[in-house]
């Protein structure tokens, strides 16, 4: 079911508080305050409710504050104003139960795939048998079994990103934040990685927030897509895709898919033009 243009509120849709998994309340981020550098109002104020178990994507023009939003939600950056909650607790620092996958290759070059995936579990003091069980599962799940003893330098960019996803997956996060994880990959690999991500989301039942610049990726993967304005980024639209939970990249041939991406582009085009200084 698609929302019609104009129906979408410029904030999260009203849902019961019990369903809210993470919440941003009036979050603003301003860089350069108290320094000699120019002040840049990067984000907000942003209000957002992430519902438990939903797949939510954020699209917006370059430099609109998408990654800043993710950093605030992950506890990696303190908002200049506003509050961030995860599981009804205000967060200060990275909370337990949150996993982040970045756009850049964050695999540890000095560790094998297996040791990369086991890194967080060893840090958490999980016992050896449990580490083996979880790592075996995650490595198999991400299709890395044949490369378990390889080093990241021996893998393709897509495989290294899968290592990073597996490293997040083994920690069984309840909220998974992905900052353009497939940005550096080719289109075919991105579609296939999208399938794997959907499989992971269904299996873990985690809440997922994906930052992406690719409208087709957002339209294919998400239950709901938030469209951000040019800087300072605020949500100007929320589009519900209405896809069934059981879905994969083949929905790109669905007639609704074109309608969803068209709706996203309709809003985003104006903001993208603003961001490059051209009048819509």
């Amino acid at each position, binding site marked *: 079911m698609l929302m019609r243009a104009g129906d979408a509120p410029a904030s999260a849709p009203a849902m019961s508080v019990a369903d809210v998994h993470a919440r941003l309340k009036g979050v603003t981020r301003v860089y350069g305050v108290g320094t000699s550098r120019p002040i840049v109002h990067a984000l907000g104020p942003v209000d957002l409710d992430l519902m438990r178990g939903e797949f939510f994507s954020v699209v917006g023009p370059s430099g609109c504050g998408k990654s800043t939003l993710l950093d605030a939600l992950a506890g990696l950056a303190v908002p200049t104003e506003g509050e961030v909650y995860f599981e009804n607790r205000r967060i200060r620092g990275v909370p337990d139960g949150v996993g982040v996958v970045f756009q850049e290759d*964050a695999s540890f070059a000095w560790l094998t795939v297996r040791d990369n995936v086991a890194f967080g579990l060893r840090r958490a003091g999980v016992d050896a048998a449990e580490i083996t069980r979880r790592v075996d599962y995650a490595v198999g799940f991400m299709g890395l079994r044949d490369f378990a003893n390889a080093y990241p*330098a021996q893998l393709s960019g897509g495989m290294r990103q899968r290592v990073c996803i597996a490293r997040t997956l083994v920690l069984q996060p309840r909220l998974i934040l992905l900052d353009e994880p497939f940005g550096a990959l080719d289109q075919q690999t991105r579609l296939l990685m999208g399938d794997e991500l959907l499989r992971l989301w269904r299996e873990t039942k985690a809440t997922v927030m994906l930052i992406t610049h690719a409208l087709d990726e957002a339209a294919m993967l998400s239950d709901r897509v938030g469209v951000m304005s040019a800087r300072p980024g605020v949500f100007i639209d929320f589009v519900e895709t209405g896809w069934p939970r059981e879905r994969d990249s083949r929905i790109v041939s669905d007639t609704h898919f074109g309608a969803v991406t068209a709706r996203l582009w309709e809003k985003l085009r104006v903001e993208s033009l603003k961001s490059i200084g051209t009048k819509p």
Partner: protein
Amino acid sequence: MTREGWIRLAVVVAAVAVLEALCRTGVIAHTVLLAPSEMAVSLWNILRGGELNEDILSTLRNVLLSSVISAVLGFVCGAIIHALPRVRGAVEPLLASYYAIPTFMFYPIFIVMFGVGAQAIIAIAVLLSIVAMITATLTGLDRIPPVLRKTGTVFRMSPAARAVMIDLPAAAPYLFTGVKLTFAYSLIGVIASEFILSGAGIGYAIAYAYNNFNNQRMYGLMLLVIIVAIAANAALDAIDRRLQSRLRR
């Protein structure tokens, strides 16, 4: 071995063969240069005779000590400079022009401070090699991808744990390049210092042989220095290449 490796080996073998032929045929006078085979025989006799074992061990000990001191001190200084951007801004231009200064001119100061002996030699060698390690440390710490530090934060690691488990291994290839350079500069520093401010060591023995027209011993020892330098560099280079290969992305 790679094709390039075979070509390299062939060039060296050919150069040695040409030198051997020139010396054997008298084109190069025996008083000027010994044939490589004679140098090898001389080295064999030196090692078998054991007369210079103390000098050889003294040099190797000094090289090892100055390498370790430079590597450790250089890493600590580099890490401190990296952590203090203002200090770095002030110091970095000095580091960049450091090797324009002929360090050996300070040898009288070190003789006054430490006397003639191992301490002065090690001090000169450290002075010569430490900046290579400081520079390598700065480069290594600069090149740690910010996303790895962010990942450490996501894993809720303390700054100390992150430094040991992420920063250090991520910077390791660059740090090891620093260690490799430190060894090379230490070897140069120790041998050269032994020529001028020592009564022991390979450098001293070479100078002594030279002053006494003992070409056999002089060239034998020179061959020893070349062999030690090449062998150590090859071993360190093999580790270095292994570490660097992990950076290819």
